[in-house]
């Protein structure tokens, strides 16, 4: 009985940890924090030519973002 409760508790903890990790990842993606990782993994899959450095990618993304309407009234 006790063993079962322990397993349940562990499962619950694992689930909670996974949910928090998912939320954190979502927040990172929303804020732009994870943009380079996303780009690098995409570039690794062979769709890109030269892979940009983190700094180059950051500046390039900003140039693009602020050359079109990105904020509303």
């Amino acid at each position, binding site marked *: 009985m006790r063993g079962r409760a322990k397993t349940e508790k562990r499962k619950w903890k694992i689930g909670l940890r996974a949910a928090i990790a998912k939320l954190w990842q*979502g*927040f*990172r*993606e*929303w*804020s*732009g*924090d994870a*943009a*380079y990782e*996303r*780009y*690098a*993994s*995409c*570039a690794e899959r062979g*769709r*890109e030519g030269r892979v940009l450095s*983190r*700094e180059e*990618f*950051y*500046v*390039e*993304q*900003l*140039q*693009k*973002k*602020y*050359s*079109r*309407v*990105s*904020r*509303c*009234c």
Partner: protein
Amino acid sequence: MKRLLGIGAWVVVAALGALGLATIALHRGEGLSATWFVLAAVCSYLVAYRLYSAFIAAKLLTLDNTRATPAERHDDGRDFVPTNKWVLFGHHFAAIAGPGPLVGPTLAAQFGYLPGTLWLIAGAAFAGCVQDFVILFCSIRRDGKTLGEMAKDEVSKRGGTIAGLAVLAIMIILLGVVALVIVNALKSSPWATFTLAMTIPIALLLGVYLRFFRPGRVIEASVIGVALVMFAVVAGQWVADSPAWAAKFTMGGVTLAFALIAYGFAASALPVWLLLAPRDYLSAFIKAGAIFSLAAGILLVRPHVLMPPLTRFVDGSGPVFAGKIFPFCFITIACGAISGFHSLISSGTTPKMIQREGQARFIGYGAMLLESFVGVMAMVAACAMTPGVYFAINSPATVVGATPEAAAATISSWGYPLEAGTMAQLAHSVGEQTLWNRAGGAPSLAVGMAHIFSRTIGGDRLLSIWYHFAIMFEALFILTVLDAGTRVGRFMVQELLGRVWKPIGRMNWYPAIVLSSGLIVAMWGYFLYQGVVDPLGGINSLWPLFGISNQLLAAVALVVATTILLKMGKLRWIWVTLVPMAWLVVITMTASYQKIFSANPRIGFLSYANGLAAQIAAGKIPAAKIGEMQRVIFNQRLDAVVTAVLAVMFLVLLVEALVQWYAILARGKEAKLHETPYVATQWAEGD
């Protein structure tokens, strides 16, 4: 059984929504709890989303989840990035939520809480959300094309040019008006001016940190930045308490206007990573935090709305801005119900990031519902203060009187009792020198927000901190629009001038950057300056001009959407976009006509100008003031010309579209759609 339970639950939600709406519509007498506003809005949104958006998705757009989206077909991790629907919802909402849904409802509260609240809810459900959703869908089906490109492809080449010019013209007016809102919030307020000024070195610091030390680590940089901004809010009190420092940061309207013009130029001409981007990060975090805090505060405190449902100013004699409830309530609310600018976001980044066509409903329709809710909260915050205080903050001195006693007597004579001492006490409690004549919406919203926040945390002791936090939040919000808008405007100007002389079009040629940045700030700076020196307070002339231009852009978007739907053979359901489009045509054309030709000088630009000219001719204006009055006359005539040009541009586009519709419907012309061909998705159902 499950289905029956589901139907039963939706009947309950609909009944609660109807109860909420009926209560806010029929209530008279004592203050009404904000809970009713939340109940009416949330239940209406749920029903609209569950029924109307589902109907549009299924019948009108026939969203197809088996069709690969641009994000799937072109996935490059840079422009086309398949993004989780919740994350994309957050992105899209952060992009569409600007100062409009906060300022518009606050100004429209002069009619009472009822018309504005009803339009915020109904306008969003039947017009604003529909526009955002349909344009997003159209752009997804065209590889993420912009509104201008779609207008060119689907309506006519001239239509595309008109849409492009309309965007530039609207941008210029918008930037001038939002800058005026900041000026009126910071005028004679050393605390607020210091806090906002400090956000510039903080942003520069973050810019260097993000570029050279920790490239792209947005969260850690933003945490540092937000902490520094909060410190600046507290430090502002020390500045305000020090006579020497307070004098340095106490500025008049004209000085602040030139400071903002210089800031806009710097943000446009400097490298984007140095000032613009880090400020945007700061603003995004503070914006999200403040909006959720306001929602939580309203739910916890449940303030009573003290403004009556309808005020005497429905007749058009309002002190904040002149004009009857129709069409000016709709023009003033603008973004909280429908915003033309959203169509630029819906045809910008979002369609390039969406994973499935079916998610367009949640992101396009759903995010606009949330924006409308922000508008309802702003309405509650503005109406939670006593009406007398609301009118004292938002009315110009030329309408209510120059001295506190005279102004209090005028406002009391309208049936909204107010004592001059009340305003002095309120100003003291929020740490300001004065709250009289602070038109623009920002200070009154900040007072409302500060009362809600202080009743949640800190009580009266923290009222002044909360007030300046709210001002900082609104100003930061607006500065983000100002600097990002100036930069985009610069690109548009460069593109236009590049057609005449090619080197100007080179985006990295510094003389071209300086020239075009100077041109764009000169244009919006002129509107700002005329607002600052306008004896009627500026907002009276410029906010309706902004509203008209914004709603005209929404009408442009709906014309394009209707044309595309007709070409898709959706005649049976065409009323979904046609009715809101027709409504926008009616309100914008009526408002434009009245703003140009009304015989009431507080409404009509020309009659105001002619009245002043007649006074000069009759020798009623002192010689020293003649120059100033002549400038006002010129500005009013300029506003009339701008309004007329915008209206004519829209009418030309409408005629072009009508010719197309006639050719398709009456003459059976083959409708040529410019959709990208169908490609089946390679992703499994649950991806």
